[in-house]
């Protein structure tokens, strides 16, 4: 592709995929999230990091309306997400995963991934009931794509294994490709590395890089620093419910406030 075309594209899509403005949420008297604003840019991996209890997952839940905001606005591809149901938000192409892997128990690995294709399936239950050709073809297409997805993360040999019988790392990867199957316009991953060992984390990093090359923007909440520094283009650091730094991974790594939030002040670290 010509350089000029790339540049034109970039400037056209300069508007961010997701923009959160002034998000605020209190639980009782405690201000859990205080005036948080950030953007997720197209074709980039945006990471939100912070120590445990900083409010990362809460921000996620505010974006996807699982929790209601006290104040603030979230725009996704230019549309205000206020008062939209989880189903509607997913329908717009904002697909999220959950902190504790939520694979569907009672379904095999391949079935799990195929559920992800639901959003894009166009044939009705009625045409499935009548075994119409279109519905059967679509079913075959979904199956083939789901198999490719399993292939992508090396789970193809376990396509017929019940999802809950897979090890935690595999379940997490399965959840990510299930979300990927939904062809997200923004993929939101909630602590995908939680509970993974080092090799599994490395595999996850490879997968995330692969997703970026597909051109799918990713918003990732994580407190595994090395993973974030490895894959993120932009990093947002949050502590005690407020943003304390934004920038590229290398900028963040040298930011004194971030180091303090993560490691405590020098005195704390020594003791």
């Amino acid at each position, binding site marked *: 592709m010509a350089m000029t075309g790339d540049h034109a594209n970039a400037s056209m899509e300069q508007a961010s995929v997701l923009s959160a403005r002034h998000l605020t949420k209190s639980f009782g008297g405690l201000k859990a999230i205080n005036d948080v604003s950030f953007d997720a840019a197209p074709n980039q991996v945006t990471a939100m990091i912070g120590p445990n209890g900083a409010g990362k997952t809460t921000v996620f839940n505010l974006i*996807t309306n*699982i929790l209601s905001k006290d104040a603030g606005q979230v725009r996704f591809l230019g549309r205000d997400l206020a008062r939209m*149901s*989880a*189903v509607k938000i*997913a*329908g717009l192409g904002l*697909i*999220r*995963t*959950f902190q504790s892997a*939520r694979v*569907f*128990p*009672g*379904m095999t690995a391949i*079935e799990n991934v*195929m*559920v*992800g*294709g*639901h*959003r894009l*399936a166009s*044939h009705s*239950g009625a045409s*499935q*009931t*009548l*075994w119409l050709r279109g*519905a059967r073809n*679509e*079913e075959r297409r*979904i199956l083939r794509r789901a198999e490719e997805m399993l292939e*992508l*993360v*090396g*789970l193809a*040999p*376990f396509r017929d*294994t*019940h999802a*809950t019988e*897979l*090890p935690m*790392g*595999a379940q997490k*990867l399965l959840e990510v490709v*299930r*979300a990927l199957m*939904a062809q997200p316009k923004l993929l939101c991953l909630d602590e995908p590395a939680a509970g993974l060992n080092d090799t*599994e984390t490395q*595999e*996850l990093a*490879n*997968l995330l*890089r*692969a997703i970026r*090359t*597909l051109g799918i923007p990713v918003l990732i909440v994580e407190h595994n620093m090395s993973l974030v520094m490895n894959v993120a283009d932009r990093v947002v650091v949050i502590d005690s419910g407020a943003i304390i730094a934004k920038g590229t991974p290398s900028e963040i790594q040298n930011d004194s406030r971030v180091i303090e939030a993560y490691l405590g002040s020098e005195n704390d670290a020594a003791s």
Partner: protein
Amino acid sequence: MLEFLQICIGGLVVGSIYAAIALGFSLVYRVTGAINLSQGGFAIIAAMIGYTLGVSFGWPLWVAIRAAVGVTVAIGTMIGAFTFVPALARLSNANVLMLTAGLLTAIEGAALVVWGSQPYAMPPFSGEEPLVFGPIRVPTQAFWVFGATALCIAALWFLVAKTKLGKGLRACAENPSAAGLMGIDVPRMTLLSFALATLIAAIAGVIIAPTTSLQFDTGRLFTISGFVAAAIGGIASFPGAIIGGIFLGLATQLATAYISSLFSTAIALLILLAVLIWRPSGLVRGGAGKRQDTRDEAKAVGHAARLPVSLAWPLAALAIVIAVLVPFVVTDNGILSGLVIAGILFMTLMGLDVLMGYAGQVSLGQAGFMAIGGYTSGYFSINYELAPVLAIFAGIGVSLVCALVLSVVTLRLRGLYLALATLAFGLLVDSCAVGFLDITGGPSGLVGIPSFSVAGFEFATPRSMYYVVLALDVVILLGLAGAMRSGFGRALKAIRSDQMAAAALGINTVRYKLAAFMISVTLASLAGSMYAFFFNFLSPEMVGTGRSLELVAMLIVGGESTLVGGLLGALLLTLLPTVFQPLAIYKTFASGALLVASFLYLPQGLYGAVVQMTIRLVRPRGEAPKESAPKTTARAL
């Protein structure tokens, strides 16, 4: 005014008993997070044993009553130890509820075997002569009832609030896993709560026995009234149970006196549905309302048995060929009728499987829709000579309208409350079937329903009806199999296992649950109509709550989320009693016991067993499926 007072006293007597049973519900619910429907069964067992010892054997009433309570508690504790306690560790709470429904059915069945179906009347403890307060007469038994209930309440309160054992019970109620870590024997506490509930039920049973007539299935009424009372009052709260019980007793007695005895149940149930809409957690809110969610999470949905595709099609074809040939071999009309009935019930069961097995929505009132379908099409074909096919559609239409109204309630409810609402709905239909004499013929049934016919061709013999039912079954099965193996079925299964995750992938959970419900209602209504056309007759108990519970038993025994499993359950429970006539009396007992046994020992049902056997037969020896631990490697693109 006097009459009003007199009625109120009657209401208080009944209400006290409801309150006592409701207390048992509340106790078990708080300690285990599950509902124990078997209590009413124990109440009636205790009363029956008391009658046998006191009246038939001539023991002194005192001894007889105490012995009856003792024996019942012993039986109940045994049953609890071998069914309820192990079930709690393995099954979701909705399934535990169905298991206890199975226990109730089994107890009723056992009572039928031992005591037969005739009613018994126990003499009052202190003579027939009522006490007279001015113009008001109070039967002496009322004081026994008030006293016993008050004693139960006081003793339970003392146990829970003041003793160390009670502290253990309360700890289990708050957080069972933490209680276990603190060294509290959680299974023992569970069993204790079950035994205490049985004790309360047994006392209630013997005390109320003299004021009512006893029959093997009276226990169901105790269970349901206690359950409704607990739900109205707030199931997680002891005061709620008592208030709910008294309220329900007064309401039903007043309704019976001033409106009609036929509608007293209906009114109680309308109150319940209203409470469920208005305040799903009951009038009095208890502290342990979140329990069912925290416990359910850990218990994964079971895996359904699946035949490999390469085997499924040939076997299905073979099964159809055999089914077509059956009437040439089996000439006995009785057995053929049994097959027709099984085939008709199979229609309902396929719908129930979509609703319960796939979408995970418990329904204990499915026969209610059979009733609506059957009575509607029967009524129209008798009174307006509507062609049976059109009458069937009329029935489906009425059923769907009722279902839409009901779903206003049910779509907001999950798990236990959903089961409760569907049970209430089934009972409501039951009591309407009895109450609307002009339309349904009342308790004696609707007679003179024509046989099924299409364009003048009448299917009057079991043999011709067999083929009609077979054709319908095959068409429905093929259609549902198509939908369930595709996106529709996957969406339902996803909703069953994790609603939030399903919604996050863009699955409209409300719409899919509604669709599954409508499918099940349509099929139940169709089956009800076919049932009426086949028998040329329909009575309330043919499509009553007993039938609803039997349907659940058939589905679980046959195998959930398999579509065909229901047929095995239906065949087993309809054909066996037909083929071996002496066994007919054991049918109720068997359906309950089999349901319990399937839950505990055969989680994939008969179909699962059949599938595993088939796979073992077909697969050459020594070729066991290999499965090593998965190794994940994310290959770069």
